[in-house]
């Protein structure tokens, strides 16, 4: 699934830059609270558990399981049409947080609930590598 003009590129900002920098380096990064050890996604100013600040970044294992999924038969826009049918899934990471992604490198029809998956990175541009998941 390589970048095609018209796909929705994530607008990176100061808060998310370390996350996207990690993706570029092949590392899925999550925030961890130095006070209460809570791990969270997406990146924020505060720890959503204890409201503490000064969150640090950790490298996630990249392992997760499929919490729910769908196979998209009608693309959201022309740029995504070559990918149809593509899988949109919610992945519960081994570290706890849930994130949305695509499941790739397999027949969409073989995707199942609770299936084990691991992260892989697809370079869309020089700056953006998209974290996707494939069967573990």
């Amino acid at each position: 699934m390589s970048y095609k003009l018209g796909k929705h590129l994530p607008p990176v900002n100061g808060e998310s830059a370390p996350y996207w920098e990690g993706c570029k380096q092949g590392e899925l990064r999550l925030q961890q609270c130095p006070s209460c050890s809570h791990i969270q996604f997406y990146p924020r100013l505060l720890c959503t558990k204890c409201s503490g600040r000064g969150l640090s970044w950790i490298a996630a294992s990249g392992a997760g399981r499929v919490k729910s999924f769908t196979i998209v038969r009608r693309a959201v826009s022309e740029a995504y049409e070559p990918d149809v049918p593509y899988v949109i899934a919610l992945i519960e990471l081994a570290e706890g947080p849930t994130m949305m992604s695509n499941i790739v490198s397999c027949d969409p029809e073989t995707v199942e609930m609770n299936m084990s998956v691991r992260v892989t990175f697809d370079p869309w541009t020089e700056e953006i590598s998209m974290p996707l998941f494939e069967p573990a």
Partner: protein
Amino acid sequence: MTDSLRGRVAIVGAADTEVGKVPHMTPMQLCADAILRALADAGLTKDDVDGLVTCNSMAEPYMYHAEATAEYLQIFPRFCIGVGAGGGTTFSILHHAASAIVSGMCNTVVVAMADSLRTGMTRERAMVTQSSSGHTQFESPYGPTVPALYALIARAHMDTYGTRPEHFASVAVTCRKHAALNETAQMREPITVEDVLNSRLIADPLRLLDCSLVSDGGAAIVLTSAERAADFPHPPVYMLGFGEGYGHEHISQAHSLTESAAGIAGARACEMAGVTPREMDFAQLYDCFTPVVLLELEDLGFCAKGEGGGFAASGAIELGGALPINTHGGLLSHCHPGNPGSMFALTESVSQLRGKAGARQVSGAELGLLHAQGGILSSHTTLILGSEATL
């Protein structure tokens, strides 16, 4: 304080525009038409309006929509606000409008919403605009459509409770059955469960007929204080309870995929109204996609958690059943012009409680529950309406 708004504000005017494909009118014309029709229903003129609430139009957005609408109509309200919380907007703003009336901020509020998603936008632009409800960094790049985001909920409900596609389909069949009795509905041709199951897959397990319509249209209501409500041409419809609940905005941040903040909203509304779900003569439940109705039936307390599928398929939600829902045909079959969608559940409820719903009248309807949600099962508002007998 939870009973402070109970019965203190009433709907004294309500009207819809033409809905479906309305290429001969712009979104602003639809909004103005809805307002003029609702005012005529209430026996008022535009100069009587001192509060105006609208939602923005996707096809013809304004920076400040309510103010632009006031200017267009040349009305000069004391309370003027444009709102945006997706489908949940319609009822949450009634909560605020009622508070504005009770606090003395204004006397006569018009709530009007209209859009032209069907003929005012290309299909691609309508899809991309609506799917911008995904998180711009962490969801939208993956290409989720709105049906795909709701399909994640449907799949989880199937996995957790054994819900089947034919359960989802029964909601679509019921709404179409009711729309067949409503001459203003966009889709009136009866359908069967098999028709739904044979329609093409959009985002598994959701099929075309599990998805609501894309429409043009608008509707408006006129609100005033209960003290003034007796002086209008039609019997007032009283607002008995409001409740809001917020769980998340983006579906990837939902704490549960199978249980929503509808439960909190419904409990708050019932507490204010002093009623239980069991007492409702009808319910209008937000039906952007069929599985949402099953979650609402459960979370609002009309059946046990996980039993929404069986409840819907039993016929209980049809006219003549224990809890008729979406008596006008809902977003699935009446019309769905985007954010204004719930307005039609509201105007339909007014018709039901006035006893003027014709062939689809719920016999002896005195009390109804309306529920709307916005985002992806994110922001919820429950509204309980009643006739004078319920005060």
